[in-house]
């Protein structure tokens, strides 16, 4: 049994919130740099250049990459041999969000009573916290400030069980096509196939923590990722939807066995400011 204090968790989450919102991950910046060399639309190339310049300004002047510093999505992998002491895990994470968004001058974008008063909670809590018990004695925190523009373009649909791969590709393409410039392309697209409705959407979200260019360990799923990326980039949406050959930087897929009646497909879209940051305690 290894002890980790609530204070350590709070401190780490606060740091992750600030770092994730100011420093574009290297793999994302690399993918945008590389897209600049393949993009066919000159106007789109200029937009990609502005995105890179923005990352440089954010990093050097400590300005958030985007004014939408997001819902604070935290996926915690808790080793089953870890004992959290000195407070409740969820409170510790929310305290870290409160501190990070306050001290980091981040935007507080969370409205309480969503269908009525919509009062701002004032500190960007509560976070959207996913916990997962894993083997081992470490605690891993994955932080994602998830912007509203792209999150709002998420979609879920259950298809007939025999509809197969074609249904998945059609659904993902239709989602990207209809979203246009709203989710801030070039995108990173997470797709969850199988399980149940909430399992599919959770898988779609969790794939967005992967590195650009990485592929699913299952060959068939990896091939579908390649096929989806090609299909999406043929749509012509382009950076900020001005037209172009770079609509997505990558597509990630995860799957889970599902009910004999079902083919659940969930799409969770990430913008080009694909901000994630991790820490291991």
């Amino acid at each position, binding site marked *: 049994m290894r002890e980790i204090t609530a204070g350590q968790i709070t401190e780490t989450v606060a740091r992750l919130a600030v770092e994730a919102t100011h420093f574009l991950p290297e793999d994302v910046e690399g993918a945008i740099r590389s897209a600049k060399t393949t993009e066919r639309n000159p106007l789109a190339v200029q937009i990609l250049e502005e995105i890179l310049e*923005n990352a440089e*300004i954010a990093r050097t002047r400590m300005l958030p990459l*985007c004014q939408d510093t997001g819902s604070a999505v935290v996926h915690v992998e808790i080793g089953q041999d870890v004992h959290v002491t000195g407070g409740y895990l969820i409170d510790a994470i929310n305290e870290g969000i409160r501190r990070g968004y306050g001290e980091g001058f981040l935007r507080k974008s969370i409205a309480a009573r969503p269908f009525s008063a919509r009062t701002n909670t004032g500190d960007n809590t509560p976070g959207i916290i996913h916990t997962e018990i894993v083997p081992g004695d470490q605690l891993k925190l994955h932080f994602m400030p998830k912007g509203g523009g792209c999150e709002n373009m998420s979609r879920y649909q259950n298809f007939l069980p025999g509809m197969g791969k074609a249904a998945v590709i059609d659904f993902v393409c239709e989602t990207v096509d209809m979203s246009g410039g709203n989710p801030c392309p070039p995108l990173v697209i997470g797709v969850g196939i199988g399980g149940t409705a909430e399992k599919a959407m959770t898988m779609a979200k969790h794939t967005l923590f992967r590195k650009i260019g990485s592929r699913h360990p299952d060959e068939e799923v990896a091939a579908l990722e390649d096929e989806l990326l090609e299909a999406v980039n043929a749509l012509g949406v382009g950076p900020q*939807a001005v*037209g172009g050959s770079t609509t997505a930087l990558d597509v990630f897929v995860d799957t889970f066995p599902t009910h004999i009646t079902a083919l659940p497909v969930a799409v969770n879209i990430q913008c*080009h400011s694909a901000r994630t940051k991790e820490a291991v305690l």
Partner: protein
Amino acid sequence: MAEGVHLTTPLTDEVIDTLTIGTHVTFTGVIYTARDAAHKRLIELMKNGQELPVDLRGQVIYYVGPTPPRPGAVIGSAGPTTAMRLDPYTIPMLELGLKGIIGKGGRGPAIREAIKQHHAVYCIAVGGAGALLNRHIKSAEVVAFEDLGTEAIRRLGVEGFPAIVVNDCRGNDLLESGKAQYRTSERPIPAVKSLGG
């Protein structure tokens, strides 16, 4: 960044005539911020026959909710938000004389038509470039609905604020023509629909 057509606010009909889709423009002068919550209140004021806090004639609205400024700074990160969410509120603003809008993403068919009808222009700034756009904002002052925080209406003094014309006064749409030009997919293009509409 490409050198753009320099625009000073407020905008005149003659200047709007010269703008076509795909043109880089830069705004210098005063622009006003407003998002969902502020628009909702403006519409309520209009319904009650009350005076609006801003005279919109010839003005430009920027759909933005900035991050808080660090001590000594004018404003925080300040990039555009999704324009289509404001579609339900846009026509009354154009009727009051609004001439320019800056946001991100496309507009629904009714708004494209209204922009043409009211001889206005819709531009996009690069979404997710809030740090870069911050550098072009020289002053910021809350002029209405302070309780809305980031969603309050602010008067921004801008210099060389960069944007791209997406809907011009002749009814053209850059996103539609751009997609058609660069599409290699055989899939039919789905119709554009306003969000929530």
